[in-house]
């Protein structure tokens, strides 16, 4: 196991875009997240074509690039954040495949390793094309978090899960980031079904926006990922609003049990 902490109550996984809306804001956001109990922070390296992101993250990616954020400046910030919070929380990089592709998968893995990151999430990398990339990460002792989505093709999901390592990211609904999801029976049933097929903990993302959402996932999800809602809170109400949101998330998470079987 690479991930430091296995959650007994629901784990919180935060999402930030490097340097967005500013470098200082990213620092503060991560600090608040960690303080509120996040044990994994996902840092997105901006890309010009963030195909899996909805309007909020799409605009943020473009703003960051327009402001001159680069791969290198993103890595530098990540390294700094790992230094600051790495004892309390794990960091993973979220980005699109073209970023590691340009770097070279090997070099990319080495650089991530050096920065202290433990894994990656690449939304536009389907299982079929992931072998070389995942091997490169593994070569450095890192892991790639595979995504599972509610498309109903369970044979495919079986294949995705069969080689999954450390954590599985379960996409809560169809579509892209940033729209609300219905955290209901159907989703929980799907989570339970996924769980029967893998030993990895399950992180649920896309549309989680409040403590209430977390409570609805209690007993089924092991981690919840809060992305768009988190950035929106900051953009709308600055640090105060952000802090309020994460307080709500944190307490809901602490009250909620995970779906991990007792023997986990």
């Amino acid at each position, binding site marked *: 196991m690479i991930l430091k902490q296995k959650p007994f109550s629901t784990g919180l996984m935060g999402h930030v875009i490097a340097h967005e809306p500013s470098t200082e804001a990213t620092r503060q956001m991560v600090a608040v997240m960690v303080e509120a109990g996040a044990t994994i922070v996902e840092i997105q390296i901006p*890309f*010009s*074509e*963030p*195909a*899996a992101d*909805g*309007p909020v993250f*799409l*605009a943020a990616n*473009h703003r960051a*690039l327009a402001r001159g954020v*680069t*791969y290198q400046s993103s890595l530098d910030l990540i390294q700094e954040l790992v230094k600051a919070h790495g004892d309390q929380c794990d960091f993973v990089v979220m980005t*699109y*495949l*073209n*970023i590691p*592709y*340009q*770097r070279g998968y090997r070099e990319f893995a080495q650089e991530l390793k050096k920065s202290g990151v433990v894994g990656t999430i690449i*939304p*536009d*990398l*389907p*299982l*079929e*094309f992931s072998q070389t990339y995942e091997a490169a990460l593994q070569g450095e002792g890192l892991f790639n978090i595979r*995504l*599972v*989505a*509610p*498309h*109903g*093709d369970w044979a*495919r999901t079986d294949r*995705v899960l069969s080689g999954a390592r450390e954590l599985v990211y379960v*996409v809560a609904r*169809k*579509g*892209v980031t940033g*729209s609300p999801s219905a955290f209901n029976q159907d989703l929980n049933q799907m989570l339970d079904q996924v769980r029967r097929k893998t030993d990895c903990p399950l992180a649920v993302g896309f549309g989680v926006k409040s403590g209430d959402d977390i409570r609805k996932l209690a007993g089924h999800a092991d981690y919840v990922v809060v992305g768009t809602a988190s950035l929106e809170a900051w953009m709308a109400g600055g640090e105060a609003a952000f802090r309020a949101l994460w307080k709500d998330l944190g307490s809901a998470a602490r009250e909620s049990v995970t779906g991990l079987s007792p023997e986990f």
Partner: protein
Amino acid sequence: MMPPVKVLTPDDRGYFGRFGGTYVAEILMPAMTELTRAATQVMHDPTFWDEYLQELREFSGRPTPITPLKRLSGLMEGVQFFLKREDLNQTGAHKINNVIGQGLLAKRLGKTRVIAETGAGQHGIATATMAARFGLKATIYMGAEDVERQRPNVFWMEKLGAQVVSVEDGARTLKDAINAAMRDWSSHFEDTHYLLGTACGPHPFPMLVAWLQSVTGLEAREQMMAHGGGLPDYVYACVGGGSNALGIFQGFLNDPEVKLIGVEAQGKGMAPGQHAARLASGQGTMGIAQGYESLFLQTKDGQMLDTHSVAAGLDYVGVSPIIAYLAETGRIQVTGATDAEVIAAHRVMMAKEGIIGALESTHAVAAALRDARQLMLEPSEPGREVKILINLSGRGDKDIFTIAEAFEDPSWQQFLEHKVARYRLKRDKKS
């Protein structure tokens, strides 16, 4: 006759050489698989091809003719120009071929809605047209920049019953429209077919679109043999995504003596951001974006660059994996034409041949004229005339605003001012 699919069949991961693949979000993968299966099936089903040809014949007037350009040929010694007239299709461009083919496929798949990206607006118009005719709902994504450049097309799409979404993200052009369409699709793949308009994007689109467009090349070869005095020595076609070029090239892939020339948009020059020449500039580098692996205009970090062309339909950052593959194998060559060369060639075509080509297509004309003028072209048998076949992928009516601006036409400007004044008057009266 079925087209020779073998030539352009990718490997089972959707690659042509080192170009291709299916790089989309997990949520879309089963839809991609379903589509690949269906595409492969129809590509081996002669009844599908027949149905496709019949609809093209009845609705779009295919076969489109080959027009010998007598006056243009007269300008240069030893050269004969021919045009393949995709501009005479329903909706005025080759785009309708692909659209009708995918429309038939969508119906086989039981989809009730189609979505599409569009750059020049031609693919959007074609999609809206097909959707109206087939009774499907349609949503068209179009970069805000292109909405502005091609307003007449937007007007018609809406009147044809399609919803047009102006995409305000990124460079607000074709690539952003593709991203937006992909986003829509990832929510609605169950009832919605994504009708991609060129031979780009994730597998199976390049294969499927190229196959459907091969109708152009098959016709062209037959027509050249029957009326053009034999095979051409050169075939020129503009390359945006690559679909019209692949369409015509496929007629001649097995004729090694026929040289195939793709023409990219060199825009205002070779500075990054000023053109859309991925191959001809040498600036395109391997990348993965928009669902596929190919050559892209991008920074060393992998961020896509802005592109420019006077022709909205060529103003695209990536290129068909099949074009990239054929260029790498040497089977095709890729050159370019600048905005200025295109405007000049457009003028010549109008004044000498009475043909108003799309600015996209006029890139192919401009490059062919230039290469012929520079005596760079040789016949495959010494002593014969050089036969040059140019694919006129579309007509230029849609470009009236752009062309009127390029020519700085004062009476056009006055006309618009007058119209606007009248609208104002009418509005003021009402309120």
